[in-house]
């Protein structure tokens, strides 16, 4: 599975919840897509699926990193928007989250100048022009997501 089309907010919720059942500590999810694509919304549903209070999940644009520690697995919610194309990963204090205890979910990953891990899942969200649907394109780096993407597809087909 390379793509999923999301037609309504419930589809985004389902994707987030399905992913929450598959993620594990040490995962790195790299989200890209224009303003309003739904990156924070998808992160909120995923966090909710991990047992994190959804009200904790807000746009990290201003503070760059939000930490959610009260779920099944702790999450570092990162946003490179304010850094723009000068993003330097060594600058933002990400190291402590890369040690493997956290799931890293990064918005505006298109600003990443370099790879930040061997195993990453890239997710690009693209809105169609009428803004009726959103298409999520998955791209994996490393092997860890190969089987899980197949499971994600099964999960998305279930009611």
């Amino acid at each position, binding site marked *: 599975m390379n793509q999923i089309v999301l037609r309504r907010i419930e589809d985004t919720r389902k994707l987030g919840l399905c992913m929450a059942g598959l993620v594990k500590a040490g995962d790195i999810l790299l989200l890209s897509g*224009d*303003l*309003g694509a739904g990156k*924070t*919304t998808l992160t909120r549903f995923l966090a909710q699926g991990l047992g994190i*209070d959804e*009200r*904790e999940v*807000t*746009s990290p*644009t*201003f*503070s*760059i*990193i*939000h*930490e959610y520690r009260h779920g099944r697995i702790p999450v570092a919610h990162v946003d490179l*928007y*304010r*850094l*723009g*194309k*000068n*993003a*330097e990963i*060594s*600058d*933002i*204090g990400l190291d402590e989250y890369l040690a493997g205890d956290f799931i890293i979910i990064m918005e505006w990953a298109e600003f990443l100048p370099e790879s930040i891990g061997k195993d990453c899942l890239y997710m690009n969200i693209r*809105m169609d*022009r009428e*803004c009726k649907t959103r298409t999520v394109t998955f791209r994996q780096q490393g092997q860890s997501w190969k089987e899980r993407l197949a499971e994600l597809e099964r999960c998305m087909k279930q009611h």
Partner: protein
Amino acid sequence: MEPRIVLGIETSCDETAAAVLENGKDILGSVIASQIDIHSEYGGIVPEIASRKHVEAIHPVVQSALAEADLGFHDVDAVAVTQGPGLVGSLVVGLSFAKAAALAAGKVLIGVNHVQAHLLSVFLENAAPPEFPFVGLVVSGGHTSLYLVRSFLNIELLGQTRDDAAGEAFDKVAKVLGLPYPGGPVISKLAENGDIRRFKFPRARLPETPCDFSFSGLKTAVMQQVRNMEHKGQIVPVEDVCASFQEAVVDILIEKTLAAAAEYGVSCIAVSGGVASNMCLRRDMLNRAQESGLKCHFPKQEFCTDNAAMVALAGYHLLKEGMSIGPDADVYSRLPL
């Protein structure tokens, strides 16, 4: 302890600031060094540069504030510093400096919550400040929250943004329109000549949690509108987009603040934070509060954006209640729910 002279230090984001406050009232000196020009030049914030600029600026800024006050460090009774929320790398500079200075000179150290400081900024140089209890709206690039303020220290969070802060929505809409950072002042300026009714942008009312805010849908709606017109080859009426967008933000900020005032039975509201310097928000909030029989308070323009006088004031009230911090205190990037 009631400190006579409090030195306030603020480095939570783009401003390095220091201020000297006497008797919790008189600002003897206040200095702000902004980094906004530097970050605009790079087209984004570079945290490492932000931290370095704070390191370079903090000593001269503190010295200038003391010089303005015509005092030396030995005259200071207590040092109040912003502990959070904010950018960790920036907060650390202010806190480390404050700790070292306080420790070396044997001064009391007070850790201040940046949002609480904004709430109290309305008391700075204000001969007719709000009466407790009041509903306080803090609205800036990083925060959009409503509070019930019962006293200087008894403050209850009523609701906050679920996604983007209002100031963040201004910045992102500015980016969509190809306008510079920060978005607030430039959108506000262009909106003066625009039609607020040209576009009907959504207002998120959130009936189940009426004190919460959401600006993400508004931001997306503006973006869709602009991209659609661009795609059809139409000229984007930037002034009308700015006016209609600003109207939607201002409208919801006012509606929710007035509703909270009614819900909690208070007769005063106060609006603070960077977006509180928006002239349209000031004018409309004052008018609509008046129609509802409420007194509406804004800080002076200079105290809306980040400053250290508000930090010193919050520190003064904290210390009066004996609340100081030790040398092992750390910064925090966010407030708990």
